[in-house]
């Protein structure tokens, strides 16, 4: 067993595929993502199957998640946002939440601790904002970069700043999810690694190793909070950005 806190992020191939010189191997990261999709699909299917008027536990959980996301989309993107983007936001939230939760199992891979995964999700949102914004508002979408009420002589400067601000979105969007999950898992592994390290130095070490062990348990609880909170933060930021596609004027 390795005590290297970074070892858990190492991607190992399960099956090697090569498509036109591109390494499209099926890795443990792929497995974790397939597992997240399968987990969400299975739980939702099981929850919705009875479809009773008085919901059981599973159905209640699914309906709570549904209305939670629906209210979130309505709050930040309005009724039109719910109509257009609810399935997208719900899929993102469910996938990230499940990927984070799968990562909480010891020895399991955390897909969201890879910046490639979070950056891909953020870029999908970014591309959706641009495509939907231009398809819906035409050139009016570019009003996003020119806030109303700015004097003409300073407008070029404001537009440049707004463009940089706009392009910095996918970066901060992806880094926030990745950094939280990555840092949390490193911290967990470091404190957990102290336990056998202290325990191997003698009887006093065994007694002392209770401290890092207690810390690991506490951090584990905190990581569950982070896993849920970061999925929520990713989804609510997605809503805020999608709102810009629908209503580009500031």
């Amino acid at each position: 067993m390795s005590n290297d806190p970074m070892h858990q992020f190492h991607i190992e191939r399960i099956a090697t595929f090569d498509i036109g010189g591109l390494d499209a191997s099926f890795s443990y990261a792929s497995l974790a993502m397939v597992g997240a999709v399968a987990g969400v699909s299975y739980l939702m299917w099981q929850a919705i199957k009875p479809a009773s008027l008085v919901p059981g536990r599973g159905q209640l959980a699914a309906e709570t998640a549904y209305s939670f996301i629906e209210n979130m989309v309505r709050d930040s993107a309005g009724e039109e946002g719910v109509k257009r983007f609810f399935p997208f936001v719900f899929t993102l939230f469910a996938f990230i939440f499940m990927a984070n939760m799968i990562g909480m199992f010891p020895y399991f891979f955390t897909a969201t601790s890879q910046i490639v995964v979070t950056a891909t999700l953020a870029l999908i949102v970014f591309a959706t904002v641009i495509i939907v914004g231009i398809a819906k508002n035409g050139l009016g979408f570019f009003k996003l970069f020119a806030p109303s009420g700015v004097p003409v002589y300073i407008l070029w400067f404001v537009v440049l700043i707004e463009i940089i601000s706009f392009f910095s979105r996918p970066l901060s969007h992806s880094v926030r999810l990745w950094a939280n999950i990555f840092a949390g898992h490193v911290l967990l592994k470091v404190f957990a690694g102290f336990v056998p390290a202290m325990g191997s130095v003698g009887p006093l070490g065994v007694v002392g190793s209770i401290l890092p062990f207690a810390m690991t348990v506490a951090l584990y609880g905190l990581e569950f909070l982070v896993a849920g909170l970061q999925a929520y933060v990713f989804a609510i930021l997605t809503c805020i950005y999608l709102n810009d596609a629908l209503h580009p004027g500031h």
Partner: protein
Amino acid sequence: MAENDPLPDDDRLDSLRRRVDAARAEQSSRSAPAKDSAASLALRFGGEFGAAVLVGAAMGFGADQFLPTKPWGLIFGLVLGFAAGVVNVVRVAQTYAKSHPVDPNAPRIADDEE
């Protein structure tokens, strides 16, 4: 059922609806936004600022590759990135302040000047 509930069906439905609404209102007032930890706030503000600086510098550097302006694109882009970072932070702070209003009943903080 009729002997222990004298109300007609419509009134019973109304009364149920009122109780559900009351319970729902109470629940929504209790489930106020979770208090973010200081670390997550710092990470959010810092991330927004840093991302804009990086993107500004990268765009300036990219412009230098195509225009004969080296190294002014990078310098100018970096400065604009800082400005955009401040804009980002102000926006995040505005949304944060909107979702976390100051408690009007909070005790006053003593002023150092007095």
